[in-house]
């Protein structure tokens, strides 16, 4: 309030300098202005009225307007005069300016509010921090006090400990002292004992002498008659020989005892070696094979290769018999190695099981618990199925064994039918095969016949050719004699004719008749009449037709059994 009043005074004087100073004053203390505004947040109407009227009165209206205009222009608002130099007020611009000022005022108020809020917040934060600080300070104090207390206790305990140590040392010293006392007393007693013993020995000697001197006249021993020795032998004199013999016998006894013990130990050793061998085999079988575990291989690759070498070496039988130091060492070392590997393997499996349960499966051949459970369920269901199957089969078996006669007969008939059908099937197959075989045989024999005939024809040809040669050599050339090439043709013709005739049923019947007469040994007697028959027929007939070789042709060249089958 006071500021306003001081400010209003230079305005009333309407001095430019004062106004300037006023404005500069105003600029210098905007915050004080603001605080003034804050304090004047809710001015009463009356105050406002009087307040506002203090600035502008009837007299200084123009000056105040000019002043207002100047202020507004300096603040950047447009002039409130209608024209640049006139004294007419542009109401519109005045209203605008007022509006602008109001807006500005609102803005300023808002900013002020915000600032006030922040101020409050900061104030509360500050309070809070101060509280915390106070609390922490308290805590620090407490802890310091505690520390002091604990240190005190620690000190007490340490002193107690020291006391106990001291006591222990004292006790130990006392024990040592007592032991020393005991030992010294023991030596003293021993010494005394020895002294007394010597005295006693002296007495004994004296007594002995007296006793021996005072010998009874009669014999100390009275026997009716002397008894023979237990083993029936006579007593022997004591000589060096007997001494030597005694020594010998004693050593014999000792030696036999040692030998016996050694035997037992050897047996025990052999047993243990066997056990070790067994264990080794078991361990090797238990250990995982190298290919499936590449990881392990890289870790113990070297060791495993050694193991394989060891296996190769030490599983030989003769190595087990050797008992020298190095072999034994190697053996025990190898077993220890393998046992360690087995242990590692088992530990790994354990880890994997525990890891697998949590779900982190890194290796492909480890199955998680769920898979394992699924597997077991599947296996169980399989087992169940198998069991049911077994049960049904058992029932069927039971039925078969215990059903009535009718059903058994029926069943048997059914089985028989089945069997018969099967047998018929087989028979059919068999016959088919037989036919096939026959065909093959026929073709084979045909070929053989042809070959034989050709050979025969060739032979005949050769013969005729030789004859011709011979005849030609003699000089006469007959037209009947055929040249070599055509001889073959003729022979072929001849062969064909032969074949043709052979296929005649007459020939066949004759042959069969002859065969039937002498079934077993048909070949040889049959051979002789046949060619004659053939030749006869050849000369008689002249029909030539292509016919496949007769089935019965090959009797000349083939064994008898084939003929019989026909």
């Amino acid at each position, binding site marked *: 309030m006071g500021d306003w009043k001081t400010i209003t005074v230079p305005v009333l004087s309407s001095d430019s300098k004062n106004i300037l100073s006023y404005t500069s004053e105003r600029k210098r203390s905007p915050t004080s202005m603001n605080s003034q505004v804050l304090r004047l947040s809710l001015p009463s109407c009356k105050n406002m009225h009087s307040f506002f009227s203090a600035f502008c009165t009837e007299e200084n209206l123009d000056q105040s307007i000019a002043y207002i205009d100047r202020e507004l222009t300096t603040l950047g608002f447009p002039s409130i005069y209608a024209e640049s130099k006139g004294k007419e007020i542009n109401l519109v611009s005045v209203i605008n300016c007022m509006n602008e000022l109001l807006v500005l005022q609102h803005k300023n108020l808002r900013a002020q509010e915000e600032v006030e809020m922040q101020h409050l917040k900061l104030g509360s934060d500050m309070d809070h921090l101060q509280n915390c600080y106070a609390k922490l300070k308290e805590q620090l104090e407490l802890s310091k006090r505690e520390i002091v207390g604990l240190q005190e206790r620690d000190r007490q305990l340490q002193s107690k400990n020291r006391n106990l140590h001291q006591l222990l040392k004292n006790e130990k010293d006392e024990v040592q002292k007592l032991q020393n006392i005991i030992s010294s007393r023991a030596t003293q007693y021993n010494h005394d004992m020895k002294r007394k013993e010597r005295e006693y020995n002296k007495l004994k000697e004296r007594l002995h002498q007296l006793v021996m001197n005072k010998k009874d006249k009669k014999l100390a*021993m009275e026997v009716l008659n002397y*008894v023979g020795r237990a083993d029936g032998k006579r007593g*022997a004199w004591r000589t060096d020989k007997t001494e030597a013999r005694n020594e010998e016998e004693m050593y014999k006894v000792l030696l036999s005892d040692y030998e016996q013990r050694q035997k037992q130990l050897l047996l025990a050793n052999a047993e243990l070696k066997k056990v070790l061998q067994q264990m080794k085999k078991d361990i090797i079988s238990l250990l995982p094979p190298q290919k499936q575990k590449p990881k392990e291989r890289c870790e113990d690759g070297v060791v495993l290769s050694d193991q394989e070498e060891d296996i190769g070496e030490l599983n030989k039988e003769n190595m087990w018999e050797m008992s020298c130091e190095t072999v034994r060492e190697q053996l025990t070392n190898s077993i220890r190695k393998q046992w360690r590997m087995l242990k590692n393997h088992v530990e790994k499996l354990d880890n994997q099981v525990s890891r697998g349960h949590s779900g982190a499966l890194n290796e492909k051949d480890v199955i998680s618990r769920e898979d394992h459970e699924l597997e077991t369920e599947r296996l169980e269901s399989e087992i169940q199925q198998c069991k049911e199957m077994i049960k049904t089969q058992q029932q069927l078996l039971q039925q078969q064994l215990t059903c009535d006669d009718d059903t058994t007969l029926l069943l048997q008939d059914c089985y028989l039918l089945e069997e018969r059908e099967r047998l018929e099937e087989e028979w059919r197959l068999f016959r088919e095969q037989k036919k096939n075989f026959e065909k093959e045989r026929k073709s084979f024999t045909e070929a053989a016949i042809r070959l034989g005939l050709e050979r025969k024809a060739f032979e005949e040809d050769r013969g005729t050719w030789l004859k011709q040669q011979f005849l030609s050599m003699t000089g006469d050339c007959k037209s009947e004699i055929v040249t070599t090439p055509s001889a073959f043709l003729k022979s072929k013709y001849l062969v064909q004719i032969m074949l043709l005739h052979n296929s005649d049923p007459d020939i066949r019947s004759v042959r069969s008749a002859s065969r039937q007469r002498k079934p077993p040994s048909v070949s040889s007697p049959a051979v002789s009449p046949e060619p004659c028959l053939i030749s006869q027929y050849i000369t008689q007939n002249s029909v030539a037709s292509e016919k496949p070789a007769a089935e019965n042709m090959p009797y000349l060249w083939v064994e008898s059994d084939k003929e019989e089958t026909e």
Partner: protein
Amino acid sequence: MDFSELFKLSGLLGRFSPDGKCLASCVQHRLVVRDASSLQILQLYTCLDQIQYIEWSSDSLFILCAMYKRGIVQVWSLEQPDWHCKIDEGSAGLVASCWSPDGRHILNTTEFHLRITVWSLCTKSVSYIKYPKACQQGVAFTKDGRYMAVAERRDCKDFISIFVCNNWQLLRHFDTETQDLFGIEWAPNGCVLAAWDTCLEYKVLLYSLDGRLLSSYRAYEWPLGVKSIAWSPSSQFLAIGSFDEKVRILNHVTWKKITELDHPATIASKKTIVYKEVEKSPTVGTERLSFPPTRALASSLFSTQSKYEISQVPVSLQYIKPVADRANPKVGVGMLAFSADNCFLATKNDNIPSAVWIWDIRKLKLSVVLEQLCTIQCFQWDPCQSRLAVCTGSSRVYLWSPAGCVVVQVPGEGDFQIMSLSWHSSGNSMVLLSKDHFCVCYLEREKV
């Protein structure tokens, strides 16, 4: 089980002959030889004085009767009852007498252990062994009877002499590293001799037959040491019972301890069976063990019946702490015995005097504890199978075998306090000895 009637006895001297045919017993100055199975009197001999000790010769043909007071040993023959032999030590006195293994020599230890005289029944020769040691077990024969070891002491040092029993020639003589040799014992295989020191020193020395020291074993230094020693029948183990209530077993290969068997007052192991003898209230007319009913009435009035019950583990046994300032305290393992088949070891801890501990040697674990009502007087293993007979000074004999255990009341009127027992060599019977009477108990083969 059959029991014979009670016969008179004096001095706990009742022995079966080694061949098992006869039983010798003494009544004051009379020696009675009976048939072992029928207990008929075969021979009756009269000695000059009250008999203090009898021993059969190894071939069961002779019996020696020693009368220490008079210093006389009389030898009787079973084949020829007219034959007699008297050995008079005269003023030398007599403290001990025993047969040699061949059954033809008698070794007499004179008073004050001045000497051991070897009297021969075959020849007129007499041998003397000087400076024998006055200890508990000073003379030891090997099982096959070839060698004899004698403990000697000269100039305050202990020695052991080994003699050949054939001709009494000295084979070896060596000194031992003991303070005061207490006893010697041969292993059953006759090749190792165990010697142990007095209880003030725990020391067990093992010597070979040729006098070499094989090994020396010492468990601890100051407390009282060895109380009892036993070899296993196979010579594989040596059990040493000591005053610290433990048994240590050494093995014959390394002579090192293979285990320590402890005898605590509380048994906690679940695998141990504890048989406790409990008294049954006497009932009249209920079933008894094979004797006529008239006696039953009489005995039931005078004696209490008892039976075995299995106690639930943990069991705490009656532990007695002995008086501290007496010599030879009743502390420690005082009795040790291996069974004949080498499977079990029976021990008695003198701190727990009414219990027998049976250890399984194959497993080296405590197998059974028999807790009796009275102090154990004596136990002995059956020479043929693993069966243990125990007597506690009552009129009952206790038998244990791996199949179970049984209490058998000896029938008879009056008190029959069994103080000692001895098995027959066949394992079919045993003689039960009390102060004034003895009785023979016949066991059927199948039972227990």
